């Protein structure tokens, strides 16, 4: 027998709108279990109590630790031996790692940027310094470079201990500066650079375009300063000498950096230090610089006190030589068959010239060139000339062996006459020689060549010299004389100046006439 339950349910509640609520269908077993469950609370009470006990224990432990920490802080009884972090949970570890990795990357980036910026800045600085030091090292090949103590500066040192330090030049040290672009530059004022100027007083006045140009310009400035220091030394030495000796000159004027001296015979000279750029070098300045250079830098053979005398004697000689040369040129200009040659003496107080005469060729080969030499030392003139041939030495050897040498000392006024006489005499010698070669006997005097005729008459070719003659200084005459003894009748025919060819022709005619 089984009983079906009636589908009647007990009503739980009815709502206002008429909905009926029935209690849940619960099994009889389930009901019993739930009833049982409702009764048993022991485990819940146990968990709650466990939590309370745990908290109390934790509180106790924390108090102990806090006391412990306080004790350690005061350092009385114990100190910390080691501390370990509590082991971090995995997610904590990972986030720490991520943060440090990100920080490291950022640092790397910053360091990378720093390196690259440094590289650029260093490159620029290196380029600037390369220009500066490149220029400095090139200039150092010629000039002493000194480094300043302490700071970074350099100087060019133009000091020379061969110089007297009386006028110790502030120019000797030249600072090396940088221009706006960092390139080498020096600051030298051109007005301070002095040149030596010598003259006669009348009686009756950057920015640079390339590094190469910068170096050249700096080098040029240093050369100017270096020379200026030397010029000041020379001027001081001349100054000192001018006061201490008075051979050959007189000090007639003094100003700052200026000396005036009189050499006598109306010649006055001056020596001054002027700013470079105003002066054109003359040979006198160069000569003064040269002789004082040898003195300062120690060839030292001549004493200082004679240098200025020597210089002025050289100057006097030069003035005198100019006058002599004028006379010689005048003679040579007027006599067409004479040539003038200057002989170098390489001495400042000596000069020499040679006058050459070349005679036309004859049938028989004979000597063709005759010379007359003029030598001047200081103001002494000496004339040497080939004279008459030695009898034994004809046709042979050098002129010194075959001819005698005539020697004269003379003064300026007599010089033209003496030269012309020598030349005329050489022509006579030549004609005489030519006559001899064709077998004609002739007589020779200094300026006359004569032939004997049948009746004791003589026919002669006579030279006459006159330096003031404008047609030609050597003129010729034919002279016929009755007898040597009496010379009562003299016929003279004036021929005037003749070329050598004409003279030779005249000789031939005379020879033909005589023989």
């Amino acid at each position: 027998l089984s009983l079906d339950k009636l589908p009647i349910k007990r009503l739980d509640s009815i709502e206002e709108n008429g909905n009926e609520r029935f209690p849940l269908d619960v099994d009889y077993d389930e009901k019993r279990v739930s009833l049982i469950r409702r009764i048993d609370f022991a485990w819940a009470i146990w968990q709650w109590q466990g939590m309370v006990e745990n908290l109390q224990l934790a509180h106790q432990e924390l108090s102990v630790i806090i006391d412990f920490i306080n004790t350690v802080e005061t350092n009385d009884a114990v100190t910390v031996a080691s501390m370990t972090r509590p082991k971090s949970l995995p997610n904590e570890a990972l986030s720490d790692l991520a943060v440090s990795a990100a920080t490291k990357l950022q640092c790397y980036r910053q360091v990378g940027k720093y390196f690259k910026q440094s590289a650029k800045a260093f490159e620029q600085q290196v380029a600037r310094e390369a220009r500066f030091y490149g220029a400095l090292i090139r200039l150092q090949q010629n000039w002493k470079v000194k480094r300043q103590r302490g700071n970074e500066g350099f100087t060019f040192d133009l000091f020379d201990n061969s110089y007297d330090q009386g006028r110790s030049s502030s120019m000797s040290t030249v600072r090396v500066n940088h221009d706006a672009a960092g390139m080498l530059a020096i600051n030298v004022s051109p007005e301070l650079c002095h040149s030596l100027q010598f003259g006669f007083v009348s009686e009756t006045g950057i920015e640079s375009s390339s590094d190469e140009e910068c170096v050249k310009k700096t080098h040029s400035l240093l050369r100017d300063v270096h020379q200026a220091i030397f010029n000041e030394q020379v001027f001081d030495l001349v100054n000192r000498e001018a006061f201490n000796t008075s051979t050959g000159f007189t000090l007639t004027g003094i100003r700052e950096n200026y000396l005036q001296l009189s050499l006598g015979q109306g010649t006055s000279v001056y020596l001054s230090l002027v700013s470079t750029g105003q002066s054109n070098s003359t040979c006198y300045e160069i000569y003064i610089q040269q002789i004082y250079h040898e003195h300062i830098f120690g060839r030292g053979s001549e004493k200082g006190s004679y240098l200025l005398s020597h210089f002025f004697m050289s100057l006097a000689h030069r003035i005198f030589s100019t006058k002599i040369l004028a006379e010689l040129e005048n003679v040579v200009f007027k006599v067409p068959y004479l040539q003038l040659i200057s002989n170098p003496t390489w001495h400042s107080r000596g000069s020499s010239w040679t006058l050459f005469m070349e005679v036309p060729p004859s049938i028989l080969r004979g000597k063709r060139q005759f010379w007359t030499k003029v030598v001047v030392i200081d103001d002494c003139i000496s004339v040497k000339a080939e004279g008459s041939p030695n009898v034994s030495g004809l046709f042979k050897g050098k002129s010194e062996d075959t001819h005698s040498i005539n020697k004269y000392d003379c003064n300026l006024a007599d010089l033209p006459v003496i030269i012309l006489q020598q030349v005329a005499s050489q022509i006579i010698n030549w004609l005489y020689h030519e006559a001899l070669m064709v077998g004609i006997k002739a007589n020779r005097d200094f300026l006359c060549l004569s032939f004997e005729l049948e009746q004791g008459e003589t026919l002669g070719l006579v030279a006459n010299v006159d330096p003031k003659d404008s047609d030609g200084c050597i003129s010729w005459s034919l002279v016929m004389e009755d007898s040597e003894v009496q010379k009562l009748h003299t016929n003279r025919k004036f021929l005037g100046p003749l070329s050598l060819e004409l003279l030779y022709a005249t000789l031939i005619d005379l020879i033909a006439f005589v023989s």
Partner: protein
Amino acid sequence: MDSQGQTTSLQRLENVEKRIVKVLELAGGVMDELASPVGPRKDLVQNHCLEFMQLIKDIQVALRDEIKSACEYRPFEKCDYGPRIANEICFKKVEYVMSQLEAMKQTIDEHNAAA
């Protein structure tokens, strides 16, 4: 490596400076590579480091040589300032002679022109 015969001391030192710049650039490049978010390229870093070490070695060798030879360098042992002035005087002589020759040439030209 520069051979000593072909370059001056200053040029060799300037090359050392250029190498230092290059070394800094390489270091910066390696740092940039390490800072890359995708991680560094191994071969690039390796090449940079090799080049870095080679350059450092070159720099050291060059500096060692220059320091040794710098000790032997004595500037201006013999001062030439005296002969320099002599040279300047000679220069002025040459200038003067040239001006005289110019004047002579001018005279000759004038003479030829007039003839």
